[in-house]
């Protein structure tokens, strides 16, 4: 057991293992502190300053995400000085932010919007220059709008620390600072593999899923946690559903993958509603597959398989089950093959 230390946060006594940061100690005690750049999976950055707190005896308002809790420490998370500082930080951010919440795809799922509301910060307090970067939407997966970027650096760290690819970094200085692939190329001109793990951590509208965010408002979707249908890794994600349609995929906390997904998992769902989906049974008549009723199709299958079994014996039947289907379906398929057809001729593409 690590040594425990006790500190006081908003008059509440909190005991945490030595080495715990103030932010984590507060969250453990159920006390809310806003953050932009902090993420439990990523290295601590201490950049956005939203998580500042007041600790008597300290010279400034320290960022709680990088300040270690110590024995006997006293912390105020929402003192007037803290609130005022957070308001100023938000005002500075909004001074250079496109105020297009009305049509932004992240409306309703944006930390900047949430905190501005929470701290009563409105636009136009500081008047000044605004970025006018072109919108980057030349790939089919991700839209980058660097005008909305708050430089929290989560995408930079997600790319380096989750995906391990180091595609994007900070470039330029001061007001001109922005996140970009090497040589200020678009993602499509870089080695980016479009996993979208940067999109999953972006707290604002700077990085958005191209189709999802232009199809539905964030609050319109029902999210259903499920397991990816592609490779054998077994990533979990959430299907975003509106009007009985899958409109997108977002990360959840998967058992295997956490929030990480690959390009197929995150952006490869379009086949579900593809117009070529089979929607009716088909029966070959005069060399052409023509639509038929379920009853007709099932009866024909049952009759033909029964006939073949009767005439040539059970082993004249063979079944290919599927590594794409569920356990339950594979179980039933081998039950059908063995108990009903009477043969062990069942296999699937495990070897391919």
């Amino acid at each position, binding site marked *: 057991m690590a040594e425990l230390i006790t500190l006081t946060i908003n008059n509440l006594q909190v005991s945490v293992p030595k080495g715990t940061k103030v932010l984590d100690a507060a969250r453990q005690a159920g006390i809310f502190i806003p953050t932009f750049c902090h993420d439990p999976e990523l290295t601590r950055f201490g950049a956005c300053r939203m998580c500042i707190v007041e600790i008597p005896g300290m010279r400034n308002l320290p960022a709680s995400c990088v300040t270690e809790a110590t024995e006997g420490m006293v912390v105020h998370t929402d003192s007037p000085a803290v609130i005022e500082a957070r308001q100023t930080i938000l005002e500075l951010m909004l001074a250079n932010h496109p105020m297009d919440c009305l049509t932004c795809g992240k409306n309703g799922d944006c930390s900047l919007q949430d905190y501005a509301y929470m701290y009563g910060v409105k636009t136009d307090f500081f008047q000044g220059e605004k970025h006018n970067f072109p919108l980057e939407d030349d790939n*089919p997966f991700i839209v980058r709008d660097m005008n909305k970027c708050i430089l929290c650096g989560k995408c930079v760290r997600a790319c380096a620390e989750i995906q*391990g690819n180091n595609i994007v970094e900070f470039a330029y200085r001061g007001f001109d600072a922005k996140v970009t692939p090497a040589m200020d190329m678009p993602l499509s001109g870089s080695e980016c*593999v479009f996993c979208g793990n940067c999109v999953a951590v972006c707290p604002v509208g700077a990085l958005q899923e*191209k189709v999802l965010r232009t199809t539905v408002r964030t609050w319109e979707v*029902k999210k259903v*946690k*499920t397991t*990816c*249908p*592609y*490779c*054998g*890794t*077994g990533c979990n994600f959430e*299907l975003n*559903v509106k009007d009985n349609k*899958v409109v997108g995929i977002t990360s959840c906390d998967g*058992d*295997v*993958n956490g929030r990480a997904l690959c*390009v197929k998992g995150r952006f*490869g769902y*379009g*086949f579900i509603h*593809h117009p*070529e989906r*089979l929607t*009716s*049974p*088909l029966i070959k008549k005069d060399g052409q597959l023509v639509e038929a009723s*379920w009853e007709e*199709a*099932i009866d*024909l*299958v049952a009759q*033909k*398989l029964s006939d*073949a079994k009767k*005439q040539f014996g059970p*082993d004249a*039947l*063979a*079944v*290919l089950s599927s*590594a794409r*289907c*569920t*356990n*339950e*379906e594979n*179980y039933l398929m081998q*039950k*059908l093959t063995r*108990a009903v057809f009477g043969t*062990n*001729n*069942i*296999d699937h*593409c495990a*070897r391919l």
Partner: protein
Amino acid sequence: MTNSIEEIAKADFILAIGTNTTESHPIISLQVKKARRNGSTLVVADPRRTAIAELADVHMQLKSGSDIALLNGMAHVIISEELWDKDFVANRTEDFEALKDTVARYTPEYAAEITGIPAQTIKEVARGYAQAPSATILYTMGITQHICGTHNVFAVANLAMLCGQIGKPSSGVNPLRGQNNVQGACDMGALPNVYTGYQAVTVEDHRVKFAKAWNVSELPAQPGLTVGDMLEGASNGSVKAMYIMGENPVLSDPDANHVVHALQKLDFLVVQDIFLTETAALADVVLPAASFAEKEGTFSNTERRVQRVRKAIDPVGDSKADWQIICNVATAMNYPMRYASPAEIFDEVASVTPSYAGISYARLDKEGIQWPCPNEEHPGTTYLHKDKFVRGLGKFNPVEYIPPAEQPDREYPLLLSTGRRHFHYHTGTMTQRTGALEVHYGTEYLEINPDDACAINISDGDMVRLTSRRGQVEVKVKLTDVVPQGLVFTSFHFPAVAINKLTNPVRDPISKIPELKVCSVKLEKA
């Protein structure tokens, strides 16, 4: 996998052999990268300089199909330098002497001759693997899709047992399975020789148990046909009718022209799928199935984790979930099969499958569970073979190197290998219809080494005709040193480049896996 995916990140030494992990298993590759960032040693053995090979400390660019020579060579070094785990070998294994005898011949110099990897590199990698506190071996089809695929796996297992690098965290033999539920399909007995949980059909007790559970008087005792044998049976007339669910052998199986011919000879073919695949187009009846988003169920992943699949939308059009269709077919054949839901089917699975016995939907709703999970209190198993192997002692199965069935010759001077691309999946049935993946990566190409291209006077982007003894395709070339001289590579994702028209259907005699990783080809400007 004998271990869990997250254990990879904590392995001190990773040997990735025949796996293009970054492209085929991107999320598992994140664990490899994490290990690398934390200072682990990564060794990649692959004929191609893949993205993961670029990340490696050592890339052993071995000749296609020479894996056994490499692995035996490593075992030779480990034995001759006394680096093997004597306690583990004494207490947990048998037939060590047989292994020692066999690998005695595989000096690093001899292995170097066969593999093309310098003897010194083989020695260093062998020492690194044997001496690491934890060492894991990752592999995929680069190991298995050879005529000696099973022996390749034996060679991998021999090495792991020799060094005691199995049965502990972050140390084991870890095949990364390529399809969402290929593990589950095997676990569920969709194989010709076993019921669920690998209970052999040849054992009478198993047959009696399943006959009782399924309420039939008896069950067939003779193991059935594998995919390849089924197609052979269809071709020679012994198989008359086939029922294919969610598979596309016309594009996925070797020697595609032969597959089409075989399926056309059937008296009756029913195909159940979500699209009219190249295989479904040959069917007498096509049954429209629901996709994964339209049904409840479970998948079992490569680390044996059973996880929920949840219904998000209603089946598209008049399609139905595969389980419902199977029930309807069974019932129409006078075997009433009715389940209220997949949960009820799962309960039946658990009741007849010891390794799944403790798993239920109620538990899975909280989190995925890794089998074996023998009872409801059992937390599941993160790594296998902790104190003993399934058969008791781990048996060394010494194996000898054999070359691939086809070798380059004057007429077919190049070797073709096939595999996957990052942006696509299997026969492309899904990934060619997403509105995104195929937009980004819409044309397939053939990787060829610039020296080979130069020798036959072709340039980057040229259309070429690639021909093997079985078939031909036309494809654009990409000049790249990802492939060494003498090797060309492409994927099987694109119907327009149906590369399995060319591949060799010759199979491993034990597992019946085809040698998709090596066949000889020639190439000319189209």
